[in-house]
């Protein structure tokens, strides 16, 4: 008896060895860990041996197995770079979001890489083409973006795109390789800044940080909480991402995009103050949230930038929606939101409608029109753990009703929405994104 499986793409054996640059960081170490888990030989490189070894430990923790260490070789740029790059069939760059540093590193990679070695960047905030200025034709034709989501062990989305010079066969090969070998949900995206997921999410985050000035951190995350179709509330997500990264992405979107939501891109003064005070989020043990030794959380006051005790908000329509969510009645939960009145309810409706409006507006710009809403649905579900935009449309009452709600809020209504694009996502199998808190 044979198991039927999709025929693997030819040539996967071409990639046996991978060099991860920036292996001390989260994305570098954990994406590298996935490669080691799948039997590839992986060089973990960073500025210091100790940094790479810290990355190795993260990879071990992700796999929950010490045995993957036998596939990983740790080293620093000074001592192991030449050997790793010479041997590598694929070089993954996951260093800090600084175009200048990346360009310098690519110059060094070019010195030692074999012809046809694939080079990919995990950046989403920097324009890709600029990173390979001055590189050879062979380098450029083998260069692409493989944008993993954090943490790769739990978030399987990976946005893939090439630059103008990239050989399309390389992009196709890597899509198959990432899907089959590394079990990624690959979303083919266009080469636009922040690609699909971060473009959409960070515009919404930006709007939420602006509203936070008025409502406060705790209330904002309560209102746009997991019951609205996301595993983590938005400001808690930014604490996970880091405010320095948030700022880099917002700045890049400000410079490189211009659409109907451009005016939402803002960096409120209190966020700059937080960055100045090194309140970057989880990595500095304080951001919008701060956990006290007692285990209790305090919340940043956007006016004073000091931490204030919890207020434990309680808004009737939110509690009603949460009750329906607890019982698995997601449509009824959204009916409770839609029928509620008042300032808080309007904010929730605004954000949900903006999510839908911007998602459908981006179809054709960040993903191919032929994909419909499917690509954006995938990246939001598998990259952010948010209910897909098409699922939110369904719980809002369907395409027509959603379009009506958007129009009432003077939000753009994309033809992609009104044409009723179908998606593989549905309410029933998206229940995990609606959390009753």
């Amino acid at each position, binding site marked *: 008896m*044979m*198991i*039927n499986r999709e025929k693997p793409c030819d040539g996967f054996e071409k990639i046996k060895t991978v060099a991860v640059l920036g292996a001390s960081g989260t994305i570098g170490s954990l994406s590298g860990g996935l490669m080691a*888990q799948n039997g590839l030989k992986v060089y973990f490189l960073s500025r210091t041996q100790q940094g790479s070894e810290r990355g190795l430990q993260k990879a071990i923790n992700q796999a929950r*197995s*010490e045995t993957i260490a036998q596939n990983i070789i740790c080293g620093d740029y000074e001592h192991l770079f030449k050997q790793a790059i010479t041997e590598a069939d694929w070089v993954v760059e996951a260093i800090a979001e600084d175009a200048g540093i990346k360009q310098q590193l690519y110059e060094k990679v070019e010195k030692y890489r074999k012809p046809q070695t694939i080079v990919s960047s995990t950046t989403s905030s920097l324009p890709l083409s600029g990173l390979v200025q001055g590189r050879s034709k062979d380098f450029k034709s083998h260069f692409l973006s493989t944008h993993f989501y954090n943490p790769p062990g739990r978030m399987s989305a990976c946005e893939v795109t090439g630059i103008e010079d990239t050989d399309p066969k390389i992009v196709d090969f890597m899509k198959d390789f990432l899907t089959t070998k590394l079990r990624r949900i690959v979303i083919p995206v266009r080469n636009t800044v922040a690609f699909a997921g971060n473009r959409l999410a960070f515009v919404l985050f930006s709007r939420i940080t602006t509203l936070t000035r008025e409502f406060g951190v705790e209330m904002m995350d309560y209102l746009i909480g997991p019951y609205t179709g996301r595993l983590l509330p938005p400001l808690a997500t930014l604490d996970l991402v880091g405010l320095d990264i948030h700022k880099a992405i917002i700045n890049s979107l400000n410079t490189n995009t211009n659409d109907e939501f451009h005016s939402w891109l803002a960096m409120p003064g209190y966020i700059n103050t937080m960055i100045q005070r090194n309140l970057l989020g989880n990595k500095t043990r304080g951001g919008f949230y701060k956990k006290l030794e007692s285990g209790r959380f305090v919340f940043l006051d956007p006016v004073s930038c000091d931490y204030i005790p919890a207020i434990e908000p309680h808004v009737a329509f939110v509690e009603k929606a949460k009750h329906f969510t607890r019982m*698995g009645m997601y449509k009824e939960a959204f009916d409770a939101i839609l029928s509620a009145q008042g300032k808080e309810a309007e904010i929730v409706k605004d954000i949900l409608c903006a999510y839908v409006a911007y998602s459908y507006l981006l179809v054709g710009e960040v993903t191919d029109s032929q994909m419909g809403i499917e690509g954006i649905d995938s990246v939001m579900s598998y990259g952010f753990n948010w209910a897909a935009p098409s699922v939110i449309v369904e719980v809002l009452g369907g395409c027509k009703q959603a379009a009506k709600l958007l129009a009432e809020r003077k939000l753009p209504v994309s033809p992609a929405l009104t044409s009723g694009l179908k998606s593989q996502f549905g309410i029933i199998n998206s229940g*995990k994104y609606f959390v009753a808190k």
Partner: protein
Amino acid sequence: MKNDAVYILGGYQTDFARNWAREKKHIAAMMREAYQGSIESTKLEPDDINAAFVGNFASELYCMQGHLGGFFTDFDPHFVGLPTIRFEAACASGAVAALTAMAYIQAGIYDLICVLGVEQMKSVDSAKGGDYLGTAAWYEQECTGIEFPFPKLFGKLGDEYDARYGLDNKHLARIAEINYGNAKNNPNAQTRDWFMSLEHACTPGKYNTTVSGRIKVADCSQITDGAVCLYIASQNFASKYAGRRGLKLENIPRILGWGHTTAQIEFAKKVAASKNNEFVLPVTRKAITDAYARAGIKNCWDLDMIETHDCFTTSEYMAIDHFGLTKPGESWKAIEEGIIEPGGKLPINPSGGLIGCGHPVGATGVRQLLDAYKQVAGIAGNYQVSNVKKVGTLNIGGSATTNVCFVVGI
């Protein structure tokens, strides 16, 4: 009682990787999704359903909620006025619910029964959950004051094999590796994104701690949350169902045979009673051979694949010789020869089984039947085994106290 065939019309499985307590959901939300998903996937009309049977082990302990049948009325007002019943036989709760549904159909009482297996287990910590599982054994005799009693009981099963025939733990590790590997092809499997290798399964360590004796974490199925809903139908209903969809009745999977036995509740007594028997668990073997006889098949080689109860690697090791793939005590041969692997002569657990797919106790028996249905219908996706006509399932409760075997096929 009529001798008409009893058909399976498909159903729905929740994603066994989910943690519904973390989602702050009530157990009824899980049941609702399974029911609604089953209606969506089968396109059955709720008005055609005559009764709902629930398989569940211990929702009172894990969720402080009993009387699960009553929730159907909350999912669909159609159920108000219809009969609902809950069945319990420890880890075989799902199978006995399906078995009873089959009996009701064969008795001519109902034409279409919704069978829903469900368990929410991540609502408590692992120590407490392990203690609750002890109630599937004789709690006072075998579990009082013992942390994680079931790994110990199934470790003893391995010890008994070792004593009678010899047992190399590497064969158990290979069972774990195969099940984890199979789970990677199943989009609803708990461990589909987890790492496993033979070396990891063989090596005790921080992430593969020894639970008891020869049983390490890699040898254990993991507790999880899950619900599975499927439909059992009479020949009369299945004929109409097939006709409406332009299907041939003979191509709709049906229950060809079944076996149902109960062994001594204490594990030590089971083993003592089998002292002079070539099978370590002869009562489990009887459930299998009863199913073969009722299905009119000679032996396991008339099956195309098996979904068995691998709550621990030792239970799958036992199932291999009890299904008859090898002589008693020689399960290792089937492992070494690749018989149970994907592509082998008789693959076991292409779904990942309990070790790979997950073991939400009350749902497992129903999940096995749904997977058997999918395989025979050719709709198992990436874990489809080619040309499946007959599938054997084995669902056991407690330390193989309750044993239910089905042969599903066309």
